[in-house]
């Protein structure tokens, strides 16, 4: 900025800021109904005002300087304006829950069927990744369960590799006791919570 510019002081800076704001390209946000039947929410703000979109096809347009305009979009409009974009969304991750024969690392019959399905999906999906996530019940400390859940996931990984899934396509995680299928009090021995989840994505 020049000396002359500086002398104009705060007033001209504010004007310049407002002008910069007004020349920004407007942006439109459309909330979609979720595929699971629930609709989430997006909070839209432009620095001055904010609005919450939380119903299917609720739409907000922020244009800088003016207030945020709201309306409801039509499905046809979404198809027309976002058809190409939506067509490029990656396939949704799938989820499997594996159980083991008591006290072993042998899959149950049902789990063996699921593992075969995992292999089919790995072959079909683009750049498929397999995420193996271990879970525990609430017996023992949280820290111990974090370790145990990760060990459980790593053991499943070693079972998947010989079935033909490349090692560099498998990642492991341990969620410990944070995500029980059956919520229980602490230190309850609940077999349904001792499991491994597989996401293919």
């Amino acid at each position, binding site marked *: 900025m020049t000396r002359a510019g500086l002398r104009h002081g705060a007033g001209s800076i504010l004007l310049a800021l407002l002008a910069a704001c007004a020349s920004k390209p407007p942006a439109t946000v459309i909330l979609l109904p979720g595929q699971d039947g629930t609709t989430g929410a997006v909070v839209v703000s432009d620095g001055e005002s904010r609005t919450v979109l939380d119903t299917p096809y609720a739409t907000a347009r922020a244009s*800088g300087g003016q207030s945020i305009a709201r309306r409801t979009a039509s499905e046809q409009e979404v198809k027309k304006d976002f058809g190409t974009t939506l067509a490029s969304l990656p396939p949704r991750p799938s989820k499997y829950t594996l159980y083991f024969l008591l006290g072993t690392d042998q899959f149950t019959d049902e789990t063996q069927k699921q593992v075969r399905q995992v292999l089919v999906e790995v072959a079909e999906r683009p750049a498929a990744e397999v995420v193996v996530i271990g879970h525990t019940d609430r017996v023992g400390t949280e820290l111990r369960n974090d370790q145990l859940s990760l060990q459980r996931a790593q053991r499943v990984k070693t079972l998947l590799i010989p079935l033909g899934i490349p090692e560099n396509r498998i990642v492991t995680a341990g969620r410990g006791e944070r995500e029980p299928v059956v919520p229980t009090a602490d230190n309850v021995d609940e077999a349904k919570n001792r499991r491994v989840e597989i996401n293919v994505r």
Partner: protein
Amino acid sequence: MKRLSVTLLAFVAMLMAPVASADDIGQVKVTSGAVHIQRGAERLPALVGTRVRVSDTVVTGDDGSVGITFTDNTLLSAGPRSTLVLEQYAFNSTTHDGKFNARLDRGSLAVVSGKIAKQAPDAMVIKTPSSLLGVRGTEFLVKVEGAE
């Protein structure tokens, strides 16, 4: 002989596969038309399987579109004439704590938010030139006007 060449092809494909790195935050799953990833001074073609990192800029051409799956299961696609900067990303796969900030300078996006947004309502933010979008979940579209 045929089996040998298939084995050989598989081996070559394995050698060519990008090396996994702890810096990877997602992978390209869908790509069509002209799409590239700007990483500093490097311009990388966006192919199925290309891994993206924090600070990458995803750029699509007039006929380009791209779909990326992130490590927290967020799905995101960008339509033609888009510029998307992956400003900030962190995901703890044990606690699901994390941060996901992206900036759409032009073009359009479709988003299905993942575990980061589910864990904490303020953890995922999409910026546009004229607004900030706080993501509470899960599926939404964004378009910045003026690219056509």
